[in-house]
């Protein structure tokens, strides 16, 4: 396989190389396109303002505000969505009753909820947390349900054969069986949550990276706008990395990768 023939050094250098090329193309575009710095700020310009934002502490403040909202919205969505998904996966009656509602609400963009969220929760963290919750909840429920359905039926026969109680079936069969799928679902969902937080912050609140971007645009500071975008990208990368690590821990407990 390709991945095996390349050393870790090459693997670490490759992303550095591609980012360098990206910045280079950016710089060349700025120099030769002839656009105003207010329309397309150059890399040096953006770096300078980034240092400025870090020095004043506002970048840190906005980042923490966004992460706070994503953490809460995502956490509540997982805490409610995974158990609901398990119930829908195990009970036919529950799935007949609730599935139509879930599939009706699922395609509605969380952003469409913004007017209602603002009316219900006012201005502040709550409407943003609510929107993030909405964006993560439905994908988590659906992924959990599918994961429960795809459990090998043999395991349920084994459970019956060893006189498992209902609680034991959930604890010892269902939950461990779906964990790898759940982690994949969380990994995909956290990215959606992170996309939605920026949109939510452009409307309902006075802080966060989304607010920073909107506010900077209003002040025609496109270098700040790009700072915000860069931080969003970096944090997205980091969130994905954490979720991948989580996947590795769990696959180890299934005995994969220990051979």
């Amino acid at each position, binding site marked *: 396989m390709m991945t095996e023939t390349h050393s870790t050094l090459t693997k670490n250098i490759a992303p550095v190389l591609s980012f360098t090329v990206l910045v280079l193309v950016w710089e060349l575009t700025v120099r030769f396109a002839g656009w105003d710095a207010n329309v397309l700020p150059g890399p040096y310009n953006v770096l300078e303002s980034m240092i400025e934002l870090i020095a004043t502490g506002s970048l840190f403040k906005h980042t923490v505000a966004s992460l706070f909202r994503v953490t809460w919205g995502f956490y509540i969505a997982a805490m409610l969505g995974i158990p609901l998904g398990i119930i829908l996966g195990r009970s036919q009656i529950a799935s007949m009753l609730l599935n139509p509602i879930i599939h009706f609400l699922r395609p509605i963009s969380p952003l469409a909820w913004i007017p209602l969220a603002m009316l219900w929760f006012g201005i502040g963290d709550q409407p943003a947390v609510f929107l993030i919750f909405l964006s993560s909840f439905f994908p988590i429920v659906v992924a959990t349900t599918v994961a429960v359905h795809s459990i090998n039926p*043999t*395991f349920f*026969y*084994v459970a*019956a*054969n*060893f*006189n498992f109680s209902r609680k034991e079936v959930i604890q*010892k*069969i269902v939950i*461990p*069986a779906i*964990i790898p799928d759940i982690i994949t679902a969380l990994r995909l969902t956290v990215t959606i949550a992170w996309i939605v937080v920026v949109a939510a912050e452009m409307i309902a609140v006075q802080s966060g990276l989304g607010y920073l971007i909107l506010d900077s645009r209003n002040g025609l500071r496109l270098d700040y706008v790009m700072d915000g975008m860069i931080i969003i990208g970096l944090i997205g990368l980091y969130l994905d990395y954490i979720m991948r690590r989580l996947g590795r821990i769990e696959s180890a*407990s*299934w*005995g*994969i990768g*220990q*051979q």
Partner: protein
Amino acid sequence: MGHIQTNNLCREFVNRRKKKREDGKYLPDEKVSVLEDINIEVEDGEMVCLLGPSGCGKSTLLRIIAGFDKQTSGSILIDGKEITGPSSDNIFVFQHSGLLPWMTVWQNVELGLRHMEDVEEKRTEIQEYIEMVELDGFEEHYPRQLSGGMQRRAELARALAVNPDILIMDEPFSGLDFLTHMKMREEVVNMHQFLGKTILIVTHDIDDALIMGDRVVVFSKRPSQVKMNRKLDFPHPRIVFNKQTELSQLRDELFLMLGVSYAV
């Protein structure tokens, strides 16, 4: 105890196919009879091998005995009582691994002993069963890290740890290489002689049936009926090929009965 008695046992399935099959064999919603009037008696401590063409319902019979499935009519009694559902008195050993992949060998074997209160006693007992199948040293391994034969042995240890009356094995040697197959066969025979449990084995392998069984039951094509039910009163170790001529004659007869001539 592990006496099994089936009386006129029948099992039908409803054909869920929407369209008529091309050969017009089964109509939609038509009932397909899989087991028809099965009358078998298995004595306590007997090892019975079930033979038959594939799809004939041998596995269905095992699943009914295990309580995973229900008969359409007729009755089946274990020690004189109707089966109400799955129970740890009759442990099913699955064709493909039934080990829980997220648990180690130790945790899998512990499943049947998890209600034991004395922790120390439980520990020794788990260790005992793991040693019985020669998996000591692999206690902390996950099923994926074991070879096919070791997985079967681990599952056997888990089944035996519950101390069931009846062991139900659905093609326990399928997918193993030839030598592992021979070894496992020997181990099951030894285990049977040592523990004297009632064992039901579904197999496709005629030699397995002749070498292992105290009795061999042959099923016909669907709808299955019992075509032969013969006690094998031969001492172990058994050699099928030459010396015991009666056994090798029976072998030829079985091959013919299942529609293949052995001598090509």
